[in-house]
């Protein structure tokens, strides 16, 4: 039986992917991208979860063997930052695209056509 965390995270990724593949508005695609990112981060976190253990911060009453896997958390921390950075960059590109083509429809933006 697949865990509800995995199911939820993968569903989010697929929803994001669906938005990227089928929506024609660039902003909607970027929303899809963000949703996908969230899904990926959730998936990473849920991979490191160990049932019944607590946060991996060494303090009173919490020893090293009672913590969940800390590596995915460090990974996700990095991934969130990267995600925000790419989203910011993509949004600025979207602004530039709108200024140049007066539309956000990817079908109509054909500057890349060879």
């Amino acid at each position, binding site marked *: 039986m697949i865990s509800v965390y995995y199911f939820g995270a993968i569903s989010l990724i697929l929803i994001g*992917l669906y938005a*990227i*593949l089928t929506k*024609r508005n660039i902003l909607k*695609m970027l929303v899809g991208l963000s949703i996908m990112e969230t899904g990926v981060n959730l998936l990473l976190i849920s991979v490191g979860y160990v049932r019944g253990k607590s946060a991996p911060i060494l303090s009173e009453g919490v020893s090293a063997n009672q913590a969940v896997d800390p590596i995915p958390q460090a990974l996700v921390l990095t991934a969130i930052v990267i995600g925000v950075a790419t989203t910011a960059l993509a949004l600025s590109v979207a602004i530039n695209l709108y200024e140049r083509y007066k539309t956000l429809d*990817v*079908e109509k*933006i*054909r*500057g*890349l*056509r*060879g």
Partner: protein
Amino acid sequence: MNELVVMVIAPLLAGVLAWLLDVRGIKEALGVLGAAVPLGYAAVLYERAGEGINVAYTLGGFQITFALNQLSWFFIGIAALVGFTAVLAMVSTAKSSYEWLFALMSLSGVLGVFLANDLMTFFIFWEIMTFASFMMVLKYNKGASLKYFLLSVFGAYAMLIAIGIIYAKLGTFEFSAVQQAMYRDAYAVMLGGQGLFTKGETALIYLLFIIAFGVKAGAFPLHVWAPDAYSETNQSYTSFFSGALSKAGVYGFILMYILMGAKLTYEFGAFRSTTKFGYIIAFIGGLTIVVGGLLAALQEDIRKLFAYSSISQLGYILVGIGVGTALSMQAALFHALSHALFKGLFFLIVATIVYRTGKTEFKDMGGLAEKMPFTFAMAFIAILSLAGIPPLVGFASKWVLFEAVISQNLPILGGFVFFGSAIGFVYLIRFTYAVWFGQRPTDLDDTKDAPLPMAIAMGILALGNVLFGIAPGLVARELNKIFGREVIGGTLYVLDLGFGKYNALLLTIWLVIGIIIAGIVYFMGAKVRRIPVTDTYQAGNPITMDYNLTIRRNFFLPLKETLAFWLRMSFDRLYRDVGRYVEDLAETLRSYIYNGNVQSYAWYLAIVLLILALWGV
């Protein structure tokens, strides 16, 4: 340093020096010296060719091995001789040091090909030769060089794949090792054992080698590069190009016999009185003769005429190789020598004409015999030799070849070679009359004879034509040495095949007597009347330009009209069409796949990821 290495390196070195120094006078001297070294060594090494010389070097991870034996000495002799005369003629025609570099580089390449003792060395020098000759054509015409390059690369890849298969199975490049392994393999299969090569693999190697060597030899239908490449380069160089470089393809076919003849014979069996695989080569050769000959007759440009004629003559050599008896092999080698001699001479003559008049088409020529008597004498020898008129070398080699084909009872091939000879007259008669005789256009009135270097070069080749024609026994003796037994008997002047004899000396004497009688008759009684160019009538009417079939203009138009149906099927055009289709296909694919839509690219990513996921990566 070993003699063989010096022989191969010397022209290249001279070429590089000539290119770097680029001083008028010095570069010519260097070039001629560089081409003279192989010729000198070939003469010196003649005695030692029988015992054989082997050299091996390791160069940048490659084992470079050279070997000299009777067969390779024969080809070295041809290449060095034609190479030397072509370089000598280039003293007059070469325009820049660039040409010296690449002409001499291709001489190095072809010598390396003939001396190579393993497949890898063979391939490396094959490519050096191709590259250098490509550069020579590139200087004059981009389109022609591109066509030559594409077909050559096609052939080179075919050869590389074949070499790869052989290496994968046998683990060796060396000729003798490959030959023995192939021989053992044929025996193993014959005795019911498991062979290293399956029938399919043998057929594949055979096919790949045919493509590789067929391209270089200009075999139909891979000949399309030759007319353009031969005509669109320095004509002195073409003499070497057509005379010696095309022999590399011929040598390749012979090499294929040596390496895997037994295997191929066993796998594919016999056809009539020859082997099936050999018959295919011979048939291709026959088609080459006919197609080359017919197209040569229809050309309006001297250079093109001789390019097609060169293709046609190479067909004879392929027929000889394909028939595959000792006699026909000797005939092929003999014709390889005479082809080099008369074709080398022809292209030097063309070079002289182009150099002196600057014109290449028949319609601008005429009456040059008076103005260029020496060149005309040379042309006369070359014409007699190519047409196969005794006592010149062309007759001796063609006669042996005809006898070889007839004695094997192969009627279709016999038909091809006889037709080829007839068509040879058809195009030569045109060259003879349109260029040398008849009325001379006034702008050719101050044409001078050949410059000295070209005259010497032509003289050397013409001497070869006459010498080996009157004494064909000289060549026959060398050829017998290759086979280690007396295939062509007779003395110095007589060729004896066992079922036919040809006495060259007797014929020479008769010919000289005939010429003397004709000369007496001419000088006693002939009256010469001068007529102007326009003084030509047809059924009493002046000729109109609509259907003007003088020897200089559309002379074989009726032939062209007869052949119109066949001429529509041009392989040249076919290759062009294929090229265009590939371009169109690529263009369509590009505009549909690379469509500039970000979302499509996202789809490609998603699909690839899905495929990878399904694959279980």
